[in-house]
């Protein structure tokens, strides 16, 4: 059972990574980061069966950090949208060399 769950977790993580690298829309990249975080959560829960209840506990912390990140990230995206009328990451180049 553990192998299947870890496999699913790996697939979700890879989809998230691909999305972050390949897509241009900031919102989609953001969703893909969430996908990566949740893939790691899934691995934590699966491994908690073998390494102790702390695995499930840590998922709570990951979720709260993800929530904080979502709040700040969406606020940043909104403020970028106000300035540039778009969230396509090619169209704004501040903080870029």
């Amino acid at each position: 059972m553990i192998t299947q769950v870890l496999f699913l977790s790996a697939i979700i993580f890879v989809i998230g990574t691909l999305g972050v690298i390949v897509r241009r829309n900031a919102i989609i990249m953001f969703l893909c980061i969430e996908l990566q975080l949740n893939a790691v959560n899934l691995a934590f829960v699966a491994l908690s069966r073998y390494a102790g209840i702390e695995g499930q506990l840590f998922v709570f912390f990951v979720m709260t950090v993800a929530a904080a990140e979502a709040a700040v990230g969406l606020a940043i995206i909104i403020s970028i949208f106000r300035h540039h009328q778009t969230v396509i990451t090619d169209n704004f180049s501040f903080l870029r060399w």
Partner: protein
Amino acid sequence: MVSKEGKAFAMTILESFRSVWEGLLNLLPSMVGAIVVLFLFVIMLLNLGHDYKKDIRGGLAVLLGFGVTGSIGGLLANQLGISDDAWIRFSDVGSEIDMEVAGKGITGVIAEPLFTEYVVAFEFTGILLFVAIVGAVALAKKAD
């Protein structure tokens, strides 16, 4: 006519669906608010109805993407080659957890270390969320 075995099989399937559904019901309220808000943002900012192909990078980025994800996937698949036997030596932890769950319930098993051993981290999480919400409001409000 449905045979007795068929009925029993259907009941087993229904029973397993019910347990999965109950597990989902426990998870649902905590995530549903965040997801609905995120969904609204997506609808607002996704620019639906326009050509979405320009949303996908071409050339080097795709190569890099498939290279990175391929190597991550390969690495993970390599690690997953560990047989189930390797996990068995940990399996007493699982039965320990089962015993604790039988005694205290799943909420108690998770909440007890959360409020004793990891209480400092828990408090810091509260501070983090507070700072994040203040920062989000400050960032998102219209500049005067």
